[in-house]
């Protein structure tokens, strides 16, 4: 197993421990009160209206799908970028096709109004 993996694992453990320690302090030192209303759902000075049972706009779904598609594109661009100088013109043309097809998708969504927020 590589040394890097051990060290990064140590970093994760240390960070988690730091967070847990900070969270534990007010449990020991913090005030104890049973103030009325402390545990209620927050609302701006009026009795609660509209609970959380509201549906969200479906366009968030579209954003998430486009995000995945371009994230996957970026994933393929990383090895290409590392090898770019070696692949030369050939690599450029093959990636040009790949990007062009995806840019087409972006243009399509754009033209159809999928990126509009009103």
């Amino acid at each position, binding site marked *: 197993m590589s040394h890097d993996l051990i060290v990064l694992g140590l970093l994760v453990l240390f960070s988690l421990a730091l967070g847990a320690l900070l969270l534990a302090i*007010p449990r020991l030192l913090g005030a104890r009160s049973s103030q009325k209303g*402390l545990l209620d759902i927050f609302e701006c000075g009026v009795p609660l209206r509209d609970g959380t049972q509201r549906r969200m706009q479906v366009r968030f779904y579209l*954003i*998430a799908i486009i995000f995945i598609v*371009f994230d996957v594109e*970026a994933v393929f661009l990383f090895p290409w970028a590392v090898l770019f100088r070696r692949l030369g013109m050939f690599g*450029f043309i093959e990636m040009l096709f790949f990007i062009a097809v995806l840019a087409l998708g972006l243009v399509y969504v754009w033209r159809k109004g999928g990126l*509009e927020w009103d």
Partner: protein
Amino acid sequence: MNQTTLTLLIDAGKIAVILGCTMGAVAYTTFAERRFAAFMQNRIGPNRAGPWGLLQPLADGFKFMFKEDFVPEFADRFLYRLAPIVAFVPALLLVGVLPFGPDLVIGSQVIPLQIADPNFGVLYFLAIASFGVYGVIMAGWGSNNKYSIAGGLRASAMMISYEVSMGLAVVGLIMMAGTVHMSTIVGQQDGFFGWFIWKQPLGFLIFVVTTFAETHRVPFDLPEAEQELVGGYNTEYGSMQLGLFQMGEYAHLITASALMVALYLGGWQFPGLNLLENSPILYALAGLTVMAVKVFFIIFVFIWVRWTIPRFRYDQLMRLGWKVLLPLALLNILVTALVILI
């Protein structure tokens, strides 16, 4: 004590020191932000705790510690408790691959001033950055409050929109460097005009803008838009749980600034610094200082922007992310490719 144990101990020490320094920097960044804000708005700012108010961060920290720790009645207890940790830890994990300075040589022991230098360095920070969105979603859902959920959903949609452009902006840099190895990337940037900011100006610009969005800084602080969403995803939080979200944000600001310095602004390198190469300890210390100065300059710019530019509307934000930054990032890749080929 054999060499493996010694290396492991040194690594543990490095991690502890770096995390400690990051937390100290977090404390004083909050203070600097308040003092600068006061200065820019022609008022005094916190100056009562200690000389020039320098003990203010300690006072803030203690206040968090003595606040009541509670879980709202309708919240999902498990997710509500877990969310601050999930928001806090990825911000710290970003330091994992950052080079802070040249190798420190003490006797026969060579200590690289970097926690780990894996062969997937740039990918590591992108992977960690993609994880930052879960703290926000988890807090929003776990609080079970309409403001939190709306804030969480808006924040996460914003973060993923800008994450795409960030990843694509870095592709241009990787093409120039031909590697994803962090220490090599910093090593390539010797001499003032060797910095990648001069070779990748557009990429740098996109990276800066997306960093603002990823760290929830103004003008991209939609997650916490207090006028419309009360507090956004952390509305229901109090005590150290809220403190952890805020420390996480400042820690993210610091680590993201350090990342920007390492990738585009030459890291710990500075013209004339290699004159010191003969005395390794001095060289390492000078490198660390240069890195720190650059990082604090970037943090200052972040604070400056915060008190200068108003917040975007949500539709403007999405338009900027998808219709401006994404096409620009793709263009940057093509231009970089043509420049390298010609």
